[in-house]
């Protein structure tokens, strides 16, 4: 168990225990253990192919691990039927790495579709709320009428975030939220993430490589390596870790630059 001293007694929002995953002969997860508390911005990092995204997909019920237990809001999700998962799925929002916007719908329709599917709001109110979410993510007003193929990569990402926020979820999953964004937009995204967390008590779990984002927004960070969690803690705790994989991750040239930057801004 990874229970830390001084942690609140409230049940974790996400609780992963002993997850094993295997693709053919390749072992991806060999007993992953982690828990995310309510109101936390939790980041999962690790080298390419370390199984970060796979773990995320397992938590949001897109993939099934070989063994182990994954609890979200206290409910076991492994082996849950689609019908039983629906109430859970309404409580979380997911932003995929490449957006995964429905290409046949405009941005507004992408957001409105979620609202129309899960609420009984009148169409006018749905349009307004959709426009609000789009404005919240920093997209210009005329972006709503555009199709995903007409948007730039960064705008597509924001639109995807707007859709993930459509139902005001309690839990938000972000897969590489700032990848492919210019530094200014990336800063905008992590400011937005933090203000949503502060305003709504949102719990956020993200998979990211962005060290700046980790320093600025993450409350706790877990490093995945060799199929296990090799380090958990705040960024400053992790930067003092002795584990070789953690050191490699945070003390490469980029890691050092981000560290210096973080010290300067403090």
């Amino acid at each position: 168990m990874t229970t830390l001293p001084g942690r609140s007694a409230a049940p974790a929002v996400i609780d992963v225990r002993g997850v094993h995953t295997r693709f053919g002969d390749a072992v991806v997860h060999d007993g992953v253990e982690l828990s995310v508390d309510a109101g936390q911005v939790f980041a999962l990092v690790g080298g390419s192919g370390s199984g970060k995204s796979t773990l995320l997909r397992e938590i949001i019920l897109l993939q099934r691990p070989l063994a182990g237990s994954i609890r979200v809001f206290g409910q076991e999700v492994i082996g849950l039927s689609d019908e039983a998962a629906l109430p859970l799925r309404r409580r979380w929002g997911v932003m995929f790495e490449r957006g995964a916007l429905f290409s046949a719908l405009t941005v507004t329709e992408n957001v409105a579709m979620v609202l129309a599917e899960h609420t009984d709001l009148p169409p006018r109110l749905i349009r307004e709320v959709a426009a609000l979410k789009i404005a919240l993510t920093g997209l210009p007003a005329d972006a709503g009428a555009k199709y995903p193929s007409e948007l730039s990569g960064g705008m597509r990402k924001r639109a995807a975030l707007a859709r993930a926020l459509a139902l005001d979820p309690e839990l938000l999953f972000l897969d590489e939220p700032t990848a492919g964004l210019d530094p200014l937009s990336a800063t905008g995204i992590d400011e937005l993430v933090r203000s949503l967390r502060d305003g709504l008590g949102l719990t956020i779990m993200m998979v990211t490589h962005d060290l700046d984002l980790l320093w600025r927004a993450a409350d706790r960070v877990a490093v995945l390596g060799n199929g296990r969690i090799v380090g958990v803690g705040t960024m400053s705790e992790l930067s003092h870790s002795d584990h070789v994989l953690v050191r490699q991750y945070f003390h490469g040239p980029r890691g050092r630059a981000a560290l210096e930057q973080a010290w300067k801004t403090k």
Partner: protein
Amino acid sequence: MGVEQGTGAARDFGAELSVAASGARELRCWGQWSVRTLAALEQLLAQMHWPEGGDVLVDGSGITQLDTSGAWLLHRTMSQRSAAGGAVRLQGFRAEFAALLQLLASRALLHEAPVAPAPPWLARVGRQGWTALAGFWSYLAFIGESALALLTALRHPHRLRWRPILHNVQTAGVDALPITGLLSFLMGLVIAYQGADQLQRFGANIFVVDLVALAMLRELSPLLTAIIIAGRSGSAYTAQIGTMKVTEEIDALRTIGVGAQDMLVLPKLIALVLVMPLLTVYTDVTGVLGGMVMAKLKLGVGFGAFVDRLDDAVQLSSYWTGLVKAPVFALIVALVGCHRGFQVGGSADSVGAQTTVSVVQSIFLVIVTDALFSIVFLWLDL
């Protein structure tokens, strides 16, 4: 205190407006203000009757939950009030809720994107006509490009991509043998069966050979093969190229310096032109075989007699008139299939739409071309 109206729709959330004798108005809100209660809350607020003028105090001390949707409703109500004149003040909101309202006020410059008015019918007709014309031009351009690429490739045969050609021969040709064979066998069976009654009435049983062999060789077998291949391979061409276009693979090919024509179109075109005549010969055989089986069962014409008669019934020209159409049909199917693939826009929907158009157009063109062939053969007395 003054009038009270619009009390909560449910006990656990709601809003209430009170007007003091001085004209000061207070909106008291409580409970859950979230996307789940939004519809009821909006109705509640819409029913409220606001007296003219005066300041408004919004008391949010009773709000237990506020999400962006609930905050939006509050924000909208407040902006409406301040637009109607009079200052709006907040009171008793929890710090995080106040911060959320602030966030909305700072970000939500909410003007819904204006909906473009529908163009008048004349403009629509013009636009459709223009689209059709542009489509025709792009066809011509595509045929030109393909011809050019083919000529260049023929001048430098070592640059031809044999591997994809052989792969296409396999998928469009060899893999299609079972289905084309079965369908043409059944077709031969049906023709013989339909003709049997009439022929029997005149005692002309043996002429079932002429019926089946001429129908299959001249018309049905090339047509049937082309239609199956259009549905089977033409659609696959469109879907493949279209998906590659959506995922920017075509652009990637260009930047690597590989022409999309060389890589994607020519192998398909060449393979199909090679394979279609072979498939047609094969379906000729299976079709006649089907006729033979039915002739034996229904008319008592034995296999030996059938084959003997085949020699007299079918002239070589009949065989050729059927066969010569096959490469032309192959050109049509391959060109339409590939061209439609390149017409795909950025969406998954577009792949589906273009695949449909591809199959419909190639079958249409194959049948029209078949009719043209018939006219030409009639002139030539073949």
